């Protein structure tokens, strides 16, 4: 009875393999969240700090009754600036967490010798490295987006609680907040800038993390610094520095002229962004870095 059953199960190996890979990816990401709780705690803390500051600001605004002197459009603009500030703070925190996470993750498993445990399980280097890449590439942007929107919702609730009676039009605030629109803009922003545009940076950090014999921070930041210096001395040019600035600042040519734009995040025009050559070369470079990290992890043991 057993023998035919074994033969029957053989042809179904392929779909099983895909399901197994999906399970491996899911549990690999899950374990990153177990190990690195700062992935969600840091943006949450940033949101908490911002909300506390915002509440104090609202209360003092009510006391001085300065808000009532402003026209409704100005009131809305004031609040919108704060929405943007909260999103910038939370997403900035997420980017910093992503940088340190990427730099440490493949180095840390070698330092604490746990790489020997991870490698004793049927999880390939490809699944491991790609799961780690999803943290700064996908998980952190989406998480910071979710936390930003929740924070903005709480900001509106707080303003509705604190401001009534001070002459501010609360209904106007809720109408002007246009959650759906803001959500879409932010979603677009995190996926393009935090995900696609910064991908080569995260790829580089993962590559350093997998290979650095010690002090991955130095290995990550010293080489670009040296290249800039050597280029300046040898050729008296700053192409490499320009390249780095271009990558960090975002694609200027894909931005709309910012004069009077309602939301600075909306300035990234899709058709411009996706036709920026810098995006595609960046993604190609990211792919090379990640592929190299996958190959190199095979050779790595505890340090």
């Amino acid at each position, binding site marked *: 009875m057993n023998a035919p059953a074994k033969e029957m199960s053989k042809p179904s190996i392929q779909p099983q393999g895909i399901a197994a890979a999906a*399970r*491996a990816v899911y*549990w690999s990401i899950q374990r990153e969240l177990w*190990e690195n709780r700062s992935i969600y705690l840091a943006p949450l803390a940033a949101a908490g700090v911002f909300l506390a500051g915002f509440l104090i600001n609202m209360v003092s605004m009510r006391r001085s009754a300065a808000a009532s002197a402003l026209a409704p459009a100005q009131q809305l603009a004031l609040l919108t600036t704060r929405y943007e500030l909260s999103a910038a703070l939370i997403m900035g925190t997420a980017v910093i967490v992503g940088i340190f996470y990427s730099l440490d993750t493949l180095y840390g498993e070698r330092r604490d010798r746990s790489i020997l*445990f991870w*490698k004793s399980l*049927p*999880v390939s280097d490809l699944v491991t490295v790609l799961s780690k890449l999803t943290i700064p590439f996908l998980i952190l942007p989406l998480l910071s987006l979710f936390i930003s929107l929740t924070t903005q919702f709480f900001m509106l609730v707080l303003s509705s609680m604190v401001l009534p009676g001070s002459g501010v039009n609360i209904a106007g605030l809720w109408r002007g907040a246009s959650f759906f629109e803001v959500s879409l803009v932010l979603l677009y922003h995190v996926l393009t800038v935090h995900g696609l545009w910064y991908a080569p940076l995260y790829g580089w950090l993962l590559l350093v993390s997998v290979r650095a014999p010690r002090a991955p921070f130095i290995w990550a930041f010293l080489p670009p610094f040296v290249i800039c210096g050597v280029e300046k001395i040898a050729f008296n040019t700053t192409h490499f520095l320009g390249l780095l600035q271009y990558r960090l600042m975002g694609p200027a040519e894909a931005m709309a002229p910012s004069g009077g734009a309602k939301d600075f995040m909306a300035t990234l025009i899709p058709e411009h962004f996706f036709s920026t050559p810098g995006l595609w070369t960046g993604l190609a470079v990211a792919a090379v870095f990640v592929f190299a990290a996958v190959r190199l992890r095979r*050779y790595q043991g505890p340090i």
Partner: protein
Amino acid sequence: MACIEARGLRKAFGTNVALDGINLRVEEGRIVGLIGPNGAGKTTALNAILGLTPFQGELRVLGRDPWAERDRLMCDVSFIADVAVLPRWIRVSQVLDYVAGVHPRFDRGKAEGFLAKTSIRSNRKVRELSKGMVAQLHLALVMAIDARLLVLDEPTLGLDILYRKQFYDSLLNDYFDGNRTIVVTTHQVEEVQHVLTDLLFIDRGRIVLDRSMEEVEARYVEVLVRPEQVAAARALKPIYERQVFGQSVLLFEGVERSRLAAVGEARTPSITDLFVAVMEKRCETSQGAAR
């Protein structure tokens, strides 16, 4: 199909040759002790078998090339590389969840059953457990995996006698079923003596002894020689001689027991004594060759 098959297995780190052309065949259902001095190449050999290091020569583990197919091989092979490789931040319940999630042959209920016999609670983190408890946890995980080959590299290093004994007892009673293969390296040779079915001595990257325990028992005899018969015993060409409380203990290879019984009290040598004899003999021959 042999469980492990190596031909001309070689590995060098720069000019330092760790494995010098090893030929090896381990059949399924054996418990093999890989014994050797520090730096003999034990861990390098195990790393090659586990797909953790590239190598030269030919090596098949369960019919697969371990370097090319490590992740697939790990469905059928489990290993404990060292006592302290479980991540210290992980909770017991999390590590159970994770292994159950990624390993198709992991039986979570079985692992929980093993853990229930210990004092390890599922909400504890690994960093909060003692060294012995971490070893128990790792063993519980590994024993709940229905693997065909289990590799243990110094699994009981740093554990006290009670934990060490318990480790090998549960391995034999709860895990080994005659079909699985176990390869173990350890310096605490006397503890595995009665567990092993096969013995492999490795020294300076070469296999210097490769026999089943039955062969070892039939081939090697240790004789506690009566003082007046030392000269007669030496004439039978012992491979090693040592003094214990003023008495000569001689080790013979391939000499009939009946002849040895005439010069003293014959018995089977311990692996430790056999190991020392084989290693010292190699030392002498290599020194002789150097002269």
